[in-house]
């Protein structure tokens, strides 16, 4: 497949990953997401050419321009089916998809549902700012009731999406929630997501300082809020462990997702099941076993023989 590499690949560093200077507004939460992503890549030392960053449309979705890696900036809401195509046909590549709440839960909501149940091997980061940033302050599917936007000057009236509940019910195999002001936690979630085989999703509360300032202060200790973590079971048979969260328990994940805003942070759900990549490969292997590894020409000729 690949041809001889010319020189020894360089070590992956933040510097080598840095592309154009991000064009986000100063202090936008998305900067921290980018920084955390760089650090995790640096830690994992994924071969540079195997990193692939994809995105839809929105402020968050400008991500690929700011990462020096193979990337594609797609259309609004369709990054997941795109990413599935890359993942399935290129198992050698690490696929990362990025986007905002509008991109992921509104126009792309149905794709999220189906990508989750199909479980392709890729990592999806949703930078949720509870507003449409790029188009300048319209109500988003996660805007809370009462949020005043240009489309709801009198305050939003529609019930918002609960991302964690949506993801649990649609069958995603790794679901985590974090906060852009909590860099270490964010890095931990990213790392676990990347290492998870199958579809992993991380929702990052990432503040839009222009159109929804202070949205996530009440989950930020530095702003007087509380950043409450999910305590995961350590399976040590201790009495405390009984109270801790079993990440493979869907019903418990659903219950945590129901806790009132700002809720809890951490891994809500994780369960390994065969990825779509694995299942499709099994189909290929089984089919090729039946045809005894015949090449394209033989396969075509055999088929034509049946049409005679």
């Amino acid at each position: 497949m690949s041809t001889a590499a010319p020189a020894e690949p360089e070590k992956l560093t933040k510097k080598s990953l840095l592309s154009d200077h991000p064009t986000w507004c100063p202090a936008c939460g998305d900067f921290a997401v980018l920084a955390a992503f760089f650090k995790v890549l640096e830690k994992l030392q994924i071969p540079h050419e195997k990193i692939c960053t994809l995105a839809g449309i929105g402020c968050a979705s400008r991500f690929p321009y700011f990462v020096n890696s193979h990337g594609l900036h797609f259309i609004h809401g369709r990054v997941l089916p795109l990413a599935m195509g890359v993942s399935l046909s290129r198992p050698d590549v690490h696929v990362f998809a990025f986007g905002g709440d509008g991109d992921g839960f509104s126009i792309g909501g149905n794709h999220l549902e189906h990508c989750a149940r199909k479980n392709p091997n890729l990592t999806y980061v949703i930078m949720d700012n509870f507003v449409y940033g790029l188009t300048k302050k319209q109500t988003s599917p996660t805007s809370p009731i009462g949020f005043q936007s240009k489309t709801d000057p009198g305050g939003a009236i529609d019930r918002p999406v609960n991302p964690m509940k949506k993801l649990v019910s649609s069958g995603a195999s790794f679901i985590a929630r974090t906060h852009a002001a909590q860099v270490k936690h964010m890095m931990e979630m990213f790392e676990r997501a990347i290492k998870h085989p199958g579809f992993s999703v991380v929702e990052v509360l990432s503040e839009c300082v222009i159109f929804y300032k202070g949205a996530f202060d009440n989950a930020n200790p530095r702003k007087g809020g509380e950043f409450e973590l999910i305590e995961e079971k350590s399976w040590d048979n201790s009495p405390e462990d009984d109270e801790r969260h079993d990440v493979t328990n869907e019903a418990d994940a659903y219950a945590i997702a129901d806790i009132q805003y700002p809720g809890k942070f951490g891994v809500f759900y994780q369960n390994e099941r065969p990825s779509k990549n694995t299942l499709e490969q099994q189909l290929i292997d089984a089919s090729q076993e039946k045809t005894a590894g015949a090449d394209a020409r033989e396969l075509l000729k055999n088929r034509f023989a049946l049409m005679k």
Partner: protein
Amino acid sequence: MSSTPTAEQKPSSSDQATTERTEDINNAVIRLAGNSQKGIQTIGGLLAKLAGRSAQEVMTYMTIPSTISGGASIFQVRIGSGEVLTPGDEADFLVAFYQDSYENHINNLREGGVCLYDNDHVEPDLTDKRFIFVGVPMTSTTIEAIGGSARDRGKNIFVLGLITNLFDLQRDKLVHIIETQFKNKHESVLRNAMLAFDAGYAYQLGDIFNRSYEFEPGKAQSDGRITTDGNTALTYGLLAAGVRYGAGYPITPWSSIMEQLRSELPKYGGIFVQSEDELAAVSTAIGFAYSGHLAITGSSGPGLSLKMEAMGYASMAELPLIVINVQRGGPSTGLPTSVEQSDLMQAIYGSHGDTPRVVIAPKDVEDCYYIAIEAGRIAREFSTPVVVLTDQALSSRIEAFPEPDVSGVISPELDLEPRGEDFKPYPFDAETKHAPPGTRMTGNKYPVVTGLEHDEWGHPTSSPEIHQKMTDRRREKHKRMAASLPLPEIHGEKEGEILLIGWGSTWGPIREAVNVARESGHAVSAIHLRHIHPMPDGIDGIMDAFKRVLVIEMNDEGMYGYGQLATLLRARYADDKIKSLTKCDGLNFQIRQIIAGIENSSD
């Protein structure tokens, strides 16, 4: 018309003598009308296969009931010893299984034609002297033969036996085909089929219809021909073109392509994804394309509309992609099981912004195979989306044609050759060739593919100058492509009174109409556009040698009186002699409709 036996061959009620007579015929149109699509399809398909193997030309035509299971359905088979270009305007033989089959189709039988009916179910108007009526107790004889109840399938096979005898078809070959067809079924299925077949074959029509037919020897090669439908031919064409990845969402009549790809592609090491909708399907296909593969997606009318935004992306980002559209009657859900050519403008212009779009169309079932290979060539060479416009008629009709040569089939290879510092995905002086993920960029600058306007390196820009230059670039590459296309062949003389122009599945009817018109002294010729957008240069040169030009297509004449291709040709050549013959009834053109169009165009 060539489908009509000559006068002395015509069976007529007056000469039903007691001695059996065998007539040599070179052409027969048999219409089977019943209530079971599956059963009728089975015998129609078997007959077509037999013809394909017997050096006969064959073409079938089928209607699919719009109800979910069963419902009235017809299957028309035209078998000929010479060129067969259409399924036939009128039937020579009508097989009517039920009263409504008889009532709905008797007027499609030519005068003097034979109506073979199941007299257990059908009571024809025997006073109708236009036709010869031959009643056979199909239901009860089949019950007698296989015991129990005669389901539609059994009756169909009984009729197949009857037809085999009547036309002196090659019984052994047919039995072999039936055996192969039922190979994977329970043995009782084959046994019952053979009992029904033998009963039909042995059935003595003697007293009521003392006549049998024999086809003149066919002129086609009998060895190495395959018999199949357009969607299947297209599927294998895609595989031959090196397509290994695709995604789609079901819709009639596209579905059978995706169904076949879903089971075939894994054998080739590939993947076909059934997506949640058409937007996802085209997006996944673009993901495959970006990853360095030749990928396809497809649909029919409404689904093509859903793909449009992403197709605009593929044009802007210059990614290779094959998009199949099996046209059906529109707009909206329209006539989902009827034929129409009304998606041409959608295929060419149906997206936002200026996106030159390559649109090509197959002319018959055989060409469905080769058009897929051509789509692959263009998509790869010019790194651009290519729409293949086939249609409902081609999708299901069966034809026989020479087995394609697979020696040239190449296995696709992923190009991950490292790219240097000077790598430009959109150079002003060369075609786009992307660096898929996994490619080492030795200058450590990695490319980001984008739908924003971009410069040669792919960096987003809103510079007015660059938008103009890049728009020019995308347009000019399609012009370069057009300049490399061959001019269409002229059927008939190079000059004359009238030139017919068609595209897609109207090829057969137009060609046959030209043959008929020329025989009756009209100076008519025809060209057929396989590459419709961009079209090859030089069509004006061909048109110059004719006094009139008539563009024939199955779509509406629109607000200004011209069909979709006619509108394009008029826009390109601003030539008032270009006229339009259109229709929108969900049916293929009949020869006589085209002849009438030729005659009317003179005033």
